[in-house]
């Protein structure tokens, strides 16, 4: 075995990652999931945290509230293999268990450029983080009193304790970023004037205009927008909701509103869905916890009118019919004419989404001209985050922030800072045991009993894995970054590997299909001996148990660690080395 390392930029290898390391591919910032899970298993909590922080910047925050696109793709979640690895909560464990403070990052020497970032939400902070690392002088302008954006004003404390949030924001600010809070761009400071003092401006102002129902009665007392409701709640105010609360919406905000309403004393809280429970994108844990607290669900209904004289008394809904899935993953719905019905309510929280609060330039409104290059109608002004894309998830916002920072830094300095590469290194079989595949998914411990939960806003409902639970959960990861391969030239077709394989992951093939880049897309199986041209490991089925390698009589199976990485600015290299240790 050689210790040779290859860094590839072949499209074929990126395609390989997309299929074979599905979690990392699904993550918008391509967090190296197998690596951090393995590090945590080996009790290297600080490197597990560092591997996370390198890609997603807010491990402690995301470990609680991430939308977890990775888990949907986790191979352990395949039909016959059980449940996906609890990737998100392992991330949280890495943060919770990491007792050594994160190593201070070292920015590149100052390059003399200055950038203003508008908005200290996840996108803005992520962008500021990357820009600062590139040696750029960054000032962040925030209209609220405190930084964090939706993390602070959109997510209740019982899901995200503020100490965690502050710790991770401070880690970023320590890079030398200047934060100015309470500043409304447009009021006291215009975009134009910002441009005078900065080389570029990056708008990451988020989406702070709540969608309206545009129906009668929307101005009645007792009607709240989900956004304002959450800002109120998160700022310590206590909106009066009455006894019967209806929540219209299906996202995390709707859930947070419903659970907050319970904590404000509501007796009966119902979430009204346009589509169905099946179509919810909120995680299953979240749905369960919400139901456990006593929130009810009603589906296939759309609010039409709000009834009442001074305050809300009832809401009229119309039935919907669910249709086909759109390419964006949302289901079509249509109203069913004539199916109106009325539900009584003391308040209605409308959490049906937000749009950006548009900024103005001298010539009018600031418009996004190209989402791929983050440009706007105003030269030198870029946009990112929800402001750019409309409402998204936190992890998507971070991804956008980081990408925008890269575009800006490249334009200002002419240098490329982050390059994606596929790193390949021959390695050895791991100590994973087949029995670990049967470890059940560890459930996130949560406070039992609604009384204890609803007692105080500061009670975090989910209490986090113990070190032992986290290690147990980590065992479950198949470590898909390991690639097993049979050397066709040396194989004697003895099928020993197939005999010991735990599932149909090694195949007798007569043909291998590839895509236009050369990545394997299909193995054409045969059981006709004379047509068995090769015995091939199907890495898309492989669960990395290593049994084949252990038995191969002619030692023709190799293991390569294949990882999608970024060759970042030099300061990152310390982490990269750390990780490989």
């Amino acid at each position: 075995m050689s210790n040779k390392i290859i860094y590839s930029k072949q499209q074929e290898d990126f395609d390989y990652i997309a299929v074979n390391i599905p979690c990392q591919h699904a993550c918008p910032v391509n967090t190296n999931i197998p690596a951090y899970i393995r590090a945590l298993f080996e009790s290297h909590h600080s490197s597990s945290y560092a591997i996370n922080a390198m890609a997603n910047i807010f491990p402690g925050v995301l470990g609680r509230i991430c939308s977890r696109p990775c888990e949907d793709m986790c191979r352990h979640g395949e039909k016959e293999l059980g449940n996906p690895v609890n990737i998100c909560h392992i991330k949280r464990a890495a943060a919770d268990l990491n007792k050594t403070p994160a190593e201070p990052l070292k920015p590149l020497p100052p390059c003399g450029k200055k950038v203003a970032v508008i908005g200290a939400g996840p996108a803005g902070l992520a962008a500021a983080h990357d820009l600062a690392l590139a040696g750029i002088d960054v000032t962040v302008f925030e209209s609220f009193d405190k930084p964090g954006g939706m993390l602070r004003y959109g997510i209740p404390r019982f899901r995200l304790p503020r100490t965690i949030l502050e710790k991770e924001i401070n880690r970023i600010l320590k890079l030398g970023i200047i934060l100015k809070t309470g500043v409304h761009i447009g009021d006291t400071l215009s975009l134009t004037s910002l441009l005078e003092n900065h080389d570029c401006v990056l708008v990451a102002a988020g989406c702070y205009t709540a969608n309206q129902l545009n129906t009668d009665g929307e101005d009645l007392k007792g009607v709240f927008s989900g956004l304002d409701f959450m800002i109120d709640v998160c700022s310590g105010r206590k909106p009066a909701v009455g006894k019967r609360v209806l929540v219209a919406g299906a996202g995390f905000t709707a859930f947070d509103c419903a659970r907050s309403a319970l904590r404000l004393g509501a007796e009966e809280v119902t979430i009204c869905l346009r589509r169905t429970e099946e179509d919810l994108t909120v995680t299953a844990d979240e749905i369960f916890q919400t139901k456990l607290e006593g929130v009810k669900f009603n589906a296939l209904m759309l609010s039409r009118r709000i009834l009442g004289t001074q305050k809300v008394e009832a809401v009229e809904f119309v039935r919907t019919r669910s249709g086909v899935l759109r390419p964006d993953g949302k289901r079509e719905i249509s109203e069913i004419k004539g199916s109106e019905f009325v539900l009584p309510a003391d308040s209605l929280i409308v959490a049906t989404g937000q749009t950006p609060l548009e900024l103005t330039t001298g010539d009018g409104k600031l418009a996004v001209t190209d989402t791929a290059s983050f440009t706007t109608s105003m030269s030198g002004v870029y946009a990112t985050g929800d402001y750019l894309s409309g409402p998204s998830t936190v992890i998507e916002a971070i991804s956008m922030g980081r990408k925008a920072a890269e575009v800006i830094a490249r334009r200002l300095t002419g240098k490329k800072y982050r390059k994606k590469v596929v790193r390949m290194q021959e390695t050895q079989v791991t100590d994973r045991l087949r029995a670990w595949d049967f470890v059940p998914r560890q459930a996130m411990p949560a406070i039992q009993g609604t009384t204890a939960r609803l007692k105080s806003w500061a009670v975090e409902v989910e209490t986090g894995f113990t070190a032992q639970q986290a290690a147990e959960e980590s065992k479950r990861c198949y470590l898909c970054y390991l690639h097993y391969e049979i050397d066709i030239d040396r194989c004697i077709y003895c099928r020993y590997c197939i005999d010991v394989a735990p599932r149909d992951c090694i195949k007798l093939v007569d043909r291998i299909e590839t895509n236009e880049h050369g990545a394997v897309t299909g193995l054409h199986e045969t059981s006709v001996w004379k047509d068995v041209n090769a015995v091939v490991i199907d890495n898309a089925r492989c669960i990395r148990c290593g049994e084949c390698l252990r038995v191969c009589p002619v030692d023709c199976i190799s293991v390569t660690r294949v990882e999608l990485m970024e060759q970042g600015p030099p300061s990152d290299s310390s982490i990269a080395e750390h990780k490989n240790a």
Partner: protein
Amino acid sequence: MREDHFIVIGNGPAGSQAAFTLKEKAPEARVTIVTKEREGCCHSHLLPGFLAGSISEKKVFAISLDHYTKSGIKLRTGQSVVDVNPQRKEILLEHKETISYSGLIIAVGGRPYIPEPLLAYREHLCTLKTFQDTGTWRQLLPAADSILIMGGDLTSLAVTKSLLALKKKIYFMLTGEAFWPLRFDKALQEEVSGKLTKRGVTVLAGNKLVGIEPVRSGSCRVYVDGQKIKVDMIGAFFGLVPDIGFLRRSGLQLDRGVLVDEYLCSSHEGICAAGDCAQIYHPEIKDYWVSIGTKNARSLGKIAAVNLAGGRKKTRVDRERIFDIQGVKVNTSWWMEF
């Protein structure tokens, strides 16, 4: 040409009726029923009577196993379907066998619903849906003098009737969630309460459950709003939730049940649903409804089969029997009988 293969998932009143109808309409086609039950078609509405001893086991299983074989229907008992792939027209069984179909009827019925906050006490709660469930009841009943019934769905009332016949002391905790996902309104709740009280049942309407604590074998102490009662057995009857978890990755349109139109056709070609697991949008009443009861199930099974075999038959809604609460409707005929 490939022969037609109709698969019916579920062998309850709806599923079995669907299979026999299919065989009748398309005698050349293969018809397979896949059911996770080990026994034949069980009429679960007769189970309370069976517990009371007024109905024989034979009557509970209405159709003999031979009858399926003789009719040319392949009956696979004790086998669960874990996935449906409408693109490839295949179903996947729990033991990893795939079967191709040209037409599919989903008639899996429902399983007892336990509201999430009660899940912590699951082990103390007895339900009654399958024949196997009667085992627990028969084991505990002889020694149980007092029984708490929670919920208030149609089974609960039938069970109460049977238990009263067995001279048991009944506490009835009537809750608004009984008709999940529907809720009683005040008037209805009072009406039911009244009827129960008249029969000698202690009704605990509107009381909130605080906790359940086991005392010795079988018996439990139940805390209700400051009051505590000791019972020997607890039955949970919160209605049925369609047992359609296995369809979650199939792409079929689901809400509580499988969403179908008045012809019982789902959004995917060749897939129908019938019985308790079908959530039907019916233009006549302009709303979604689910049917409850054996008679309805059988009739839906038949309609689904007719339509799958090329017919075009609408489900009929008998307005009189629609039970309308808070805008959601249940088609039922049982209520009058209690």
